[in-house]
Structure formats: structure tokens, C-alpha cells
């Protein structure tokens, strides 16, 4: 998704124009975060589980080569066709080729952030293939022609009245109807018809087990299962980092995933796909798209441990108040901000700065990714590589000049105080970002240095 030339700050400004909506968005996500806390606190061994999950994922990254080979071998034995894609373009071509082979021009898709990352929907549309997203939230943003703003709650930025309007326009529900129960029932009817008439289904993958060649897909709605079990062709798309070594490791991850995501003890459906059903074709696409590059960066490779629960987004004070679209990437929030610069450092150079570095993201991460430390490290890489915002660079240079000379420092303070007192308009204007949301402080008579000198004499 390209946002043109707008960066996170500019896109947040757009979101922040409606203050009431920002408050509502903030509170809604905090509500989800609070549910996560309650669920986590119900498990006395929660911290041990996080540690275990983190260590399993460390092992996966250190042995990914062999696990991928083992997984492929087992999956093929199970009758699954395995494909490999180095990048998004190849992934899209593989999916397209499978659909073409079966003469399919309409298909359904359950949630897959990977296909968002690869812009599969746009690609297929250009090739005259219609994709219907079946996750309710994803269907809503699809009707609105928007990308998801959150990886677990795709339309969390939308009010029910707006959804009612969309449904009125596209599904023919009565005008002004915005009751969630009514709207969900309308979507159920509309999508049932779609499920029953499509011959191909795409799903994502939450976990892929090297030992057995099976893959697990978690949903609450049952849309992945409805699609896959009714379709003649099931295509599952996954990043290569979704591998786990053993089936029993699922015990650890399934205990953590949904509690971290929504505070539920588990998703309604945790489906283990191992073999195609008789007469069905099952394809699995393993996608790199920059993951092996991320694996080569010691400071950033453990971002690949992510299980996409979105706990870091729900807790992030910046995400909650700037909205998912301000991140202009498929995966928003803190985790997205450390994944995206790997894909395109220039395009996403703003994202590691979209954080207060408060560390809440790292504290809630079920696989213990040091997200806030990586945000800080990305900032350094981005400045070194010359991708930092020029005004930020200028400000840092001015700071360096001021702080490296005691004379300049002392006088800069004096000059500043004089201007604030005698020419406040030089500070109290739109160019000063600090002034936008707050009054400037009253001007002190003297600096701390001056005060200290005076009081020391009085001793």
C-alpha cells in the first residue's frame, strides 16, 4: 500500500482531525488490551509459557533451513503441492497460475496478512479474477475499498453507522440500520451464498509443523473452514517463518495466541489441515519476500518470531491514537514498524519514529520480541543510511552545535528566553510543532545555571 508522499505523522494528523473518534478508537483498543491482561493473569505459568514460546521460535530461526526441508517433505507425503516464492510477485504469479489451471475466475479468501503484504487482491483483480474476503472485518474494508487497519480486527477504525451505510449500498440492507447483530446476519447470508458458489479458497497459515507437514489456521468465524472444505482447490499462503518444529509445540502457541490477541482462551476454530480431502487439491505457497534478509540482520531477525496476535498494537499509545492506516503498511503498529523497514527502508523510514519507546509492546509480546529496542535500533540504521527526515536531521545538527559548546548553550538559552518574552509570535506559531497542541510555558527569569550560581554564593 502506498500512501503517496505522506508519512506517519502526516497521516496521523488526518486521523486526529476527529478528536471524538480518536478517543473512541483509543478506548476500544485499550478494552481489548484489558481483556488480554485478564486472560493472561488467569494463567499462573504465563511468563514460563512466553519464555518457552520465545525459545521455540529461537530454535526455529536457527534451524529454519532443515525445518523447511522437513516440512516440505512431510507435506508432499500428505499429498499437498508445495510452492516456493522468493518475493511477492512470484507468490502472486503462483496463485494466479493455479487458478488459471482450474479455470477459476472467482474465489474466496480468509484472512491472510501475507496476501495483504503481497497485494494479491489487486494483482488478481488486474487479471480479471474476483476475490471475496470472507472474514467479516475484511469484507467490510473490502467493500469500503480500504486496506485493513489492524491485523486481527481489520475494521476497528469503522463505526457501526458507517458499516450500516456500506451494507445498505452493497448488500441492500435497510437504510440507517446499524445494529451489529443485524449487520452480521446480513453478511452471513451474503457470504453463505458466496461460499457455496466458489470453487477455490485461499487461506493464511498460523503455524506449519515441520514434523508432520500439517498447517494450522485459527479463526473465530469459521470462514477459513467454510471456504476450504467446500472448495475443490485450497491454496494456503505462508511466510517461511511460520514453521514450528513439533506438533506438541502447538500446545504452547495455541495457549498464548488468542489470549494475547483478544483475551479469549482459544479461537473458536483451530483447524489442522494435513491432507487434501478426496478429490480436492491442496496447495501451499512458502514465501520469502525479504524474510531471509531480515534473518541476516542480528539486531532485527527476531522480529520473525511474531505470531501476529496484535497485542503490541492494542497496547501502543501511538497506534491507539493514530490508527492503523497511518502506518501505510500491511502490518501496522509496533511490530509492523520493525518489519516494514526491512522491506523498504526509504518508504518506511518514518515508522520506527512512530513510537514513544515506552516498551509496552515488548512487555505484552507472547514470544518476547524486544520490539521497542528494535525500534530504537532501526532509528540509528535509518539515520546512518541517510533516510531520516531532513527536518529531523537539521534539528539534530542544531542540537549538536548547541550542546557541544558551553558558550553557545548558555547564550542560546538567553536568546530563547528573550524571544519568548518580547516576541512570542516567533514561538507561538504553526511552524512550531510543540505549540500545536499546547501553550508554551511561562518564561523563567533565569536559567538553572544562573540560579545555581546565585544560590551557591548565598551559602
Amino acid at each position, binding site marked *: 500500500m502506498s500512501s503517496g508522499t505522506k508519512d506517519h505523522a502526516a497521516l496521523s494528523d488526518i486521523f486526529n482531525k476527529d478528536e471524538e473518534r480518536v478517543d473512541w478508537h483509543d478506548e476500544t483498543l485499550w478494552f481489548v488490551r484489558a481483556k488480554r491482561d485478564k486472560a493472561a493473569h488467569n494463567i499462573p505459568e504465563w511468563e514460563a509459557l512466553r519464555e518457552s514460546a520465545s525459545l521455540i521460535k529461537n530454535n526455529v*530461526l536457527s534451524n529454519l533451513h532443515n525445518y523447511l526441508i522437513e516440512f516440505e517433505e512431510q507435506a508432499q507425503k500428505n499429498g499437498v503441492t508445495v510452492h516456493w516464492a522468493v518475493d511477492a510477485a512470484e507468490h502472486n504469479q503462483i496463485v494466479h497460475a493455479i487458478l488459471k489451471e482450474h479455470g477459476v475466475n472467482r474465489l474466496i479468501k480468509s484472512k491472510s496478512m501475507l496476501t495483504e503484504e503481497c497485494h494479491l487482491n489487486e494483482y488478481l483483480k488486474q487479471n480479471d479474477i474476483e476475490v471475496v474476503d470472507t472474514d467479516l472485518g475484511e469484507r467490510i474494508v473490502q467493500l469500503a475499498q480500504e486496506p485493513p487497519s489492524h491485523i486481527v480486527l481489520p475494521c476497528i477504525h469503522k463505526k457501526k453507522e458507517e458499516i450500516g451505510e456500506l451494507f445498505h449500498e452493497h448488500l441492500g440492507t435497510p437504510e440507517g440500520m446499524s445494529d451489529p447483530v443485524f449487520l452480521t446476519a446480513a453478511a452471513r447470508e451474503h457470504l453463505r451464498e458466496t461460499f457455496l458458489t466458489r470453487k477455490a479458497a485461499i487461506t493464511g497459515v498460523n503455524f506449519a509443523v515441520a514434523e508432520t507437514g500439517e498447517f494450522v489456521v485459527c479463526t473465530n468465524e469459521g470462514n477459513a473452514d467454510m471456504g476450504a472444505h467446500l472448495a475443490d482447490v485450497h491454496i494456503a499462503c505462508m511466510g517461511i517463518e511460520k514453521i514450528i518444529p513439533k506438533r506438541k509445540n502447538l500446545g504452547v502457541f495455541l495457549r498464548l495466541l488468542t489470549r494475547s490477541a483478544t483475551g479469549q482462551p482459544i479461537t473458536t*476454530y483451530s483447524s489442522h489441515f494435513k491432507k487434501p480431502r478426496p478429490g480436492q487439491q491442496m496447495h501451499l505457497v512458502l514465501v520469502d519476500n525479504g524474510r531471509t534478509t531480515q534473518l541476516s540482520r542480528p539486531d532485527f531477525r527476531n522480529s520473525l518470531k511474531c505470531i501476529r496476535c496484535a497485542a503490541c498494537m492494542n497496547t501502543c499509545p501511538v497506534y491507539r491514537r493514530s490508527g492503523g492506516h497511518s502506518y501505510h503498511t500491511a502490518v501496522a503498529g509496533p511490530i509492523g514498524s520493525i518489519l516494514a523497514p526491512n522491506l523498504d527502508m526509504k518508504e518506511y523510514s518514518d515508522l520506527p519514529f512512530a513510537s514513544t519507546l515506552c516498551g509496552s509492546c515488548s512487555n505484552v509480546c507472547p514470544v518476547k520480541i524486544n520490539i521497542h529496542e528494535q525500534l530504537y535500533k532501526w532509528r540509528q540504521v535509518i539515520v546512518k543510511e541517510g533516510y531520516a527526515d531532513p527536518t529531523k536531521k537539521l534539528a539534530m545538527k542544531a542540537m549538536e552545535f548547541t550542546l557541544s559548546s558551553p558558550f553557545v548553550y548558555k547564550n542560546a538559552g538567553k536568546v530563547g528566553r528573550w524571544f519568548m518574552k518580547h516576541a512570542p509570535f516567533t514561538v507561538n506559531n504553526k511552524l512550531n510543532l510543540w505549540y500545536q497542541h499546547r501553550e508554551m510555558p511561562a518564561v523563567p527569569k533565569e536559567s538553572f545555571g544562573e540560579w545555581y550560581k546565585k544560590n551557591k554564593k548565598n551559602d
Partner: protein
Amino acid sequence: MTSRAKILEKVLSNQPEAQPLPADSFTTFPAADPVQAFATVLTTIGGTFIPVSDYQSVQKYILEHFAGQRIVSTLPELAEVSEQGWENQDPHSYANVDLAVISAHFGVAENAALWITEDLMHQRAIPFICQQLAVVVNKKEIVQTMHDAYLKIGIADYGFGSFIAGPSKTADIEQSLVLGAHGPKGMTVFVMD
């Protein structure tokens, strides 16, 4: 070079030094009464918990609640109250099934999930496409946590299996919980003595 070879080569040269797998996780805080814990969680997530002592009581419950509807079951004990010869149809034909009654290998106390493999569904679509789902599970087969669940599954072979916990649901519209997103609108669990 194929994409497969390219990816594998890059993974091999970029992956960090070997790190061991941690020790296996086990249940450390078992519930005093796992069946009670299962019942509590099931009710919280929108399911209905019905303790029964035999299939007679299951039949009675079904007749009381679902009489006159399209009922299919994989359980021969429920032949009297369910449609016969439904198993080998096109899965699309189950779209109008009102109630499907199947059995589970076991249930999990910590999250009220039931482990059901393909052989217990007859058709993979069945537990998802029906309007209401009912599952029979033996009271002795309620394990504590997901660790115990996978110990029980072990190296079993299956084509498809799913942990199912409660009815299909969504909270995508303003976080309002609605039961019956695409799959069953309700889930009844018969826990048999």
C-alpha cells in the same frame, strides 16, 4: 537456480547459530474439577453444557429442542432422530442442515475446546456449515490444558482435525460480540457420564 534453492541457500547462510529447543511444557496448575472448569468456560464462550448419562437423554434433548428440523449425525445411537444416508453427498448439500450431532475425542478444560478429527465428522464441512452443532464427549475425556491435549493426540495420523470451542463468532463490528458469523450459531456439548 530455482526459487526453492535460492530461498534455502539464503536461509542457510543467514540463520543464526544453533539454539536448542526448550524442555517440553506440561500442565503446572491443574483445575481441581476439570469438568466443572470446562462447563464454566463453555458457557462463557456462548456454548451450552448438558450433562447426560446415556444416549436416551441425548435423543430426548434433541427432540425437545430440534424436532422437525434437518438433523444429521455420525452417531449410530442417534439413528432414530437423525436423517439416514446423508454421509456421501456433495458437501454443499449440507447448507440447510439445522443440527449436526457428532462426537469428539476429548475436551480441554482450560478453553472448552473439543478435538474432532475427520473420521468423526464424516464430511469436513459438517461442523462448520450446520446452523447448530452438538458434540458428545465422554466425561472421562476432559483433559486439563492444551499440553495434555497434544500428549493425547501424540503422533496420530489424520487428514484434518480441529479444536472447536463454542459457536462461530465475530466482534468485528465495534467489538460487539455476535454469535453465528459463518458457522453454527449455537453449540451444545453433551458430556456423558
